[in-house]
């Protein structure tokens, strides 16, 4: 289980995980001061969708080609997360929107499987319930850095002020709408390619 967690941590550095990290970043920004909640909810959504797909419970794969409904969900969820009014329902909106965003990320995820993830996904179709916890642990590993970043606002009030700013949340919403539009049009892969090329140039 520990090995699965650290393999998930290491997956952050691999291009295969970039689509997932991109989605997490969108909802983290849009979450503003609820950054931690957004990341946790995104991780939960990702883990459950991945578990359902890898266990062959559902058959959905949005990695290739246009994904109209998924793109609309991502764009809508990002807008809800970013612009939900402060108050009792904001946390619900942030959690729910990020959960949906994570689920869509799980639907586009085509992993490169190391030894630990391989052991999980090879066993998943025959042992769905048994795969849930180790897969969730692996996905939690991929979210470790994001969760650490999410703790910054509590460690530094200045960061919290910045993250709570309308500009940051709006940027998350804009990125989310752009991401959703790319999925609708079917150029999502090209977007990821471009980011990868620029990040490794």
């Amino acid at each position, binding site marked *: 289980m520990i090995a699965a967690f650290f393999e998930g941590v*290491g997956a952050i550095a691999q*291009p295969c995980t970039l689509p997932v990290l991109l989605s997490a970043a969108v909802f983290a920004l849009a979450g503003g001061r609820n950054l931690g909640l957004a990341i946790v909810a995104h991780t939960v959504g990702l883990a459950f969708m991945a578990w359902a797909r890898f266990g062959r419970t559902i058959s959905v794969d949005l990695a290739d080609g246009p994904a109209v409904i998924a793109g609309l969900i991502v764009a809508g969820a990002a807008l809800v997360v970013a612009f939900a009014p402060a108050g009792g329902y904001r946390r619900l909106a942030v959690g729910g929107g990020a959960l949906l965003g994570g689920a869509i990320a799980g639907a586009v995820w085509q992993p*490169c499987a190391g030894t630990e993830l391989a052991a999980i996904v090879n066993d998943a179709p025959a042992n769905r319930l048994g795969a849930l916890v180790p897969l969730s642990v692996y996905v939690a590993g991929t979210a470790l850095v994001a969760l650490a970043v999410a703790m910054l606002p509590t460690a530094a009030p200045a960061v919290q002020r910045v993250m709570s700013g309308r500009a940051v949340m709006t940027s998350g919403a804009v990125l989310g709408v752009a991401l959703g539009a790319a999925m609708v049009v079917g150029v999502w892969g090209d977007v990821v390619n471009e980011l990868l090329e620029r990040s490794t140039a």
Partner: protein
Amino acid sequence: MNRSPAQRLALTGVFVAAIVMVVVYVGRDDTTAQATAPGSTEPQPTGAEAPGSDANPTPTPGTAVAFVPPDLGPVPDIVDISGWLNTDGSSFAEVRGPVTIVQFWTFGCHNCRATLPHLQELYAARHDDGLEIIGIHAHEFDRERDPNNVAEAVVDLGVTWPVALDTNKTNFVAWQGSPRFWPRTYVIDGDGRIRFDHIGEGDYDELVATVDALLAEHDAAVTGPA
């Protein structure tokens, strides 16, 4: 929320520790994976059981049970290939052998590259006995789609077996359905049946055992009953 300096320091320390763990894990030397020596993990003739397989019954004490890889169904064809590397063949039928490992990979995938030393050792040990390997290169990102980049990577990585360029990912989708992974390794017998299907790294012992068992099956079929 007001926190004491000690609390802030503790939280900052957790944050830094998380970053350090990531850096240490990512930067570790993981190229020293010991390839399984083909032959050293051959199934024992007595009490053998196929790892992860339901094909072998529970052995009765004192009886020998041979490892029989499970039959996982017919193999799809390899179609819509934009080019082949390391071979003069141009189709699955021309390139395959009596026993064939088919692996979906891409050179940008760290986990795919991690399987190569194991495949290289197995190929060197069993190619003359009838093992062929076909690497179906299905890109994940654009830079992996360029045939020149693939050809360069094949040389750099020491891949000596035939490589099929699945530029349109036709086979990547047709063989795997949903969900799809890198790498994914299949072993095909001489009758066109899939006898091993593994996602990701690992399970090299079972891969070797499957190849050895199928080569023995092929030899027995060729030589006939004693």
